[in-house]
C-alpha cells in the first residue's frame, strides 16, 4: 500500500469517527435537553396553573345540603376543570357534582330544570399514587401529600376525577372568557369539612394545583 493511500484511509476513518462521535453527542445532548425542557415546562405549567385556577365559595344551602362554589381560570382560556371532591374522609362520586349551564336556564333558578345543571363527568378513577403534587419544592405523590397534610383521607382507595365543563364552552362568547363557572356539590348531611382538589393535566398525568377547604361546622 502506498503512503498516500494509507493517509487517505486514515482520513476517511477519522472523518467517520468524527461523524459517529458528533451524532452520539447530538443525540445525548438532545435527549438531555428534551427531558430538561419537559421538566421546565412542567414546572412552568404548574406555576401558571397554581396562580391561574381558583375555587371560591358562594353559599351553603343546609336545607338541601348543597354547596355552591365557583371555579375560575384567570387566563381566560377555555380549558375544562379537573376536580375531585372529598367530604370528611370520603371522596364523593362525580354524579354529586353538577355545573350550572346558564344557556339552558329559563327561570333564573339554578339547577331546577332538566338540563340547566349537567352532572360532572368522570374523567378517570385514579389511584392516589398516580396523581402528583408539587409540594415543598419537589413533585410528590398525592398519597404522600394527603398523608403529609393529615387530611384523614384514604391513601389507597381510588379517587374519582371529575370534569367540570368551563362555562365558556357552554356559552358562545367571543374572545377570552372572563366568566366564572358555577358548580354545586351535593354532600351528605352532617358533613364537617369539604375539600375541592383542582388538577391540571400534563403529559397525560394529573397534577394537583389547588385545594379549597370549606368548613361547615
Amino acid at each position, binding site marked *: 500500500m502506498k503512503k*498516500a493511500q494509507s*493517509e*487517505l484511509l486514515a*482520513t476517511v476513518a*477519522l*472523518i467517520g469517527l*468524527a*461523524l459517529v462521535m*458528533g451524532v452520539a*453527542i*447530538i443525540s445525548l*445532548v*438532545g435527549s*438531555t*435537553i428534551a427531558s*430538561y*425542557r419537559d421538566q*421546565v415546562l412542567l*414546572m*412552568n405549567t404548574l*406555576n*401558571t396553573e397554581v*396562580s*391561574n385556577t*381558583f375555587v*371560591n*365559595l*358562594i*353559599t351553603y*344551602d*343546609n*336545607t*338541601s345540603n*348543597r354547596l*355552591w362554589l*365557583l371555579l*375560575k381560570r*384567570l*387566563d381566560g382560556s377555555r380549558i375544562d376543570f379537573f376536580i375531585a371532591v372529598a367530604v370528611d374522609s370520603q371522596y364523593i362520586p362525580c354524579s354529586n357534582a353538577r355545573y*350550572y349551564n*346558564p344557556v339552558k*336556564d329559563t*327561570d*333564573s*333558578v*339554578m*339547577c*331546577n330544570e332538566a338540563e340547566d345543571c349537567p352532572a360532572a363527568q368522570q374523567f378517570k378513577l385514579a389511584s392516589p399514587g398516580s396523581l402528583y403534587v408539587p409540594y415543598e419544592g419537589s413533585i410528590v405523590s398525592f398519597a404522600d401529600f394527603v398523608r403529609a397534610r393529615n387530611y384523614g383521607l384514604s391513601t389507597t382507595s381510588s379517587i374519582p376525577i371529575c370534569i367540570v365543563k368551563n362555562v365558556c364552552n357552554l356559552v358562545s362568547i367571543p374572545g377570552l372568557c*372572563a*366568566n*366564572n363557572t*358555577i358548580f*354545586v356539590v351535593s354532600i351528605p348531611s352532617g358533613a364537617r369539612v369539604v375539600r375541592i382538589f383542582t388538577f391540571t393535566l400534563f403529559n397525560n398525568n394529573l397534577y394537583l394545583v389547588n385545594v379549597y377547604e370549606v368548613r361547615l361546622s
Partner: protein
Amino acid sequence: MRKGQGNVIIATIFAALFLAFVLPLATHLYTSYTANIKTPYSQALADVVIQVAQRASEQVLAIYNESNTVLYILNYRGKPLDIERLIVTVSCIEGVRVASLKPQEVSIPSGQQKALNLSQAVALVLQGCTKPNTTAFYIVTQQGTVIPAEVISLRIVQELQTEAGTGFLTRVGGGEKIVTALPIPIKSADQLWNISLLQAKGFTIATLDSMTSPAILTPDSTLVSSSGMRSAGFSWRLVRVTSGSITVNIGTVYNLWFGYDPRDTSKYNIMFTTTGYSPCSSTTLSKVKIYGFRSSLTQGVLQISNKWVKEPSQDVANYTFKNTNLYLTGTADRIEIYCRDGSGEVSYNPYTMLMNTVRSEGFAGLLFTTIDRSYRASLSSVPDGDTSRLDYSSKPFALVYNYSISSKQYTAVAIAVNYRFHDAEGLDADGVKSDLPIMLVGLAYRDGNVFRVYSYRSFTFRELTRYEDTYPPTAQAQSAVVFIPLPQGVDREFYVFIAFQDPYNYVQSGSYYYDCVDFTLYVENLSILPFR
C-alpha cells in the same frame, strides 16, 4: 499534494464539524441550564387576593332590601366593581331556591353608590313560591370574588284596611302599617347562641352614652364579644361547648328560664343556674345554656320539683328561685357551660337568650337576665346571696332597627313594646336609693357614624317593679305605646331603638345594702307604627 497539507485538511474538517454541531449544542445546553424556571406573575391573582382583603375590611357595602327588591351597593375600594351575576337564595314553602340574576348595570365606579332595581328578575324567581323569604344574597364579581350582601326583611304584619260595610275610613291620618322589629325572624340555620345574630336581622348593636340623659348611640359590636357587663366579684366564663346527648340530674337548680327554640318549636331553649356543674368546681356558681333541646322522654320536657313540665310558661319568671331538683334527658344542638370564676368585663352573651314563650316558629324574643341565685327579703342581705354575684352593665345594650322613617313621609311614629320584667329585690322600690332606667325606647337619627337620640321614653326600676312580684315569682305582661311626633319641615331619617341595662351594682350603708337589683327582662315585641 505535499505532505502536511492532508493533515491541515483533516484538521479543518474536524474543526468545521466541531464548530457546526458540537459547539452550538454545548452552548445551548449551557444557556438552557442557566436559564431559571420562569415564575409568572399574575396580576389577576393579585387582584383576587386584594379583593379578599378588601372584603374583610368591608370596602364594598351591599344591602338587599327584600321588601322593594332593591340592591344598594356602595363601592369605595378605589376601583370599579364589575358584577358578573347575583346569587340569591330564597326559602319558599316548596323548598329552597338558589337563583342567578343578571343585573342591568354591571359596573359600579369607585366612590359611587348604586341602587339596582331587581324587581323583574326577582319576580321570575318567585313564581310559584309560597311565603318567599330571602335568606342570602351574594354578588359575584368578574374577578371571581363573592361579596355577601346584608338582607333586610321587613315583615308587614298587618295592613290596616277600611272597615268593610261601616263606611269608616280607619286609615285616614292613621297608621299605615306595622313593622315588627321584635320578635326577630329566625331561620333554621341561624346561630341563636350569639346575639350578634341580631346584626344579621336588621339591627345595629350600639351603646348609649347615658341612660339617664341619653344623647348619642354609638355602634359597638364588642357588646356581643367582650364588653358591657361587669360584676362585683367573679364574672361568667364560658368553659365548655358541646352538643348531642345531655342528661341533667341535679339536686338544686336555683333558677331556670325556658322557651321554645324559634328555629324549630318541637325543641326548647333552656338556661339554668346551679352550683358545681361539671366542669365548674364543686363550689362554683354555674350557668348552663341548652339550645335546641329535645327530650327523649314522653312525659315532658323537663322535671322540676319532681313535676313534669310539658311546655314553657308565658311567664318567664315561672321557674325562678326554685331551689329544687331538676331532671332532663335528651339531645341538644348546643350546650354551653359557664362557670362564675372569670375576671373582668364580659359581653352580654352569658346574660341573654333568644327564645320564644309562645309556640310561634321562626320568631324569637330577647331574654336578658342578671339573676343568678336567689332573691332577698331584707336590707341586710343582698340578692343572689352575695355581693360578688351582683351583675351590672358597664355599657347599656342598645339595638337600632335599620328601618328608616322619613320625616318627609311621616308625621309621627308610635312604638309599641311588649315585655315582662321580674327582679330579685324583695323590697321592690324600697330597696333602691336611686331610681334608674332599665329600658329605653325611642327614635334616633344618623349623624355620621353615630345615631343621635331624638326622643325617647324611659322605663325605670320603680315603674317596672310595680307590676311584678319577686316571690312567688311573677312577671306580669306589660306593654307601652310610645308616641313620638316627627319634626316637620326637616328632612330626616329616623330609626327606632331599644336599649336596656342593669344599672345597679350595690351601695352599702352600715349593715344595709341598697341599689343591688338583679333582674330578668324579656322583650316579646317591638313594633313600629309610622303615621302619615
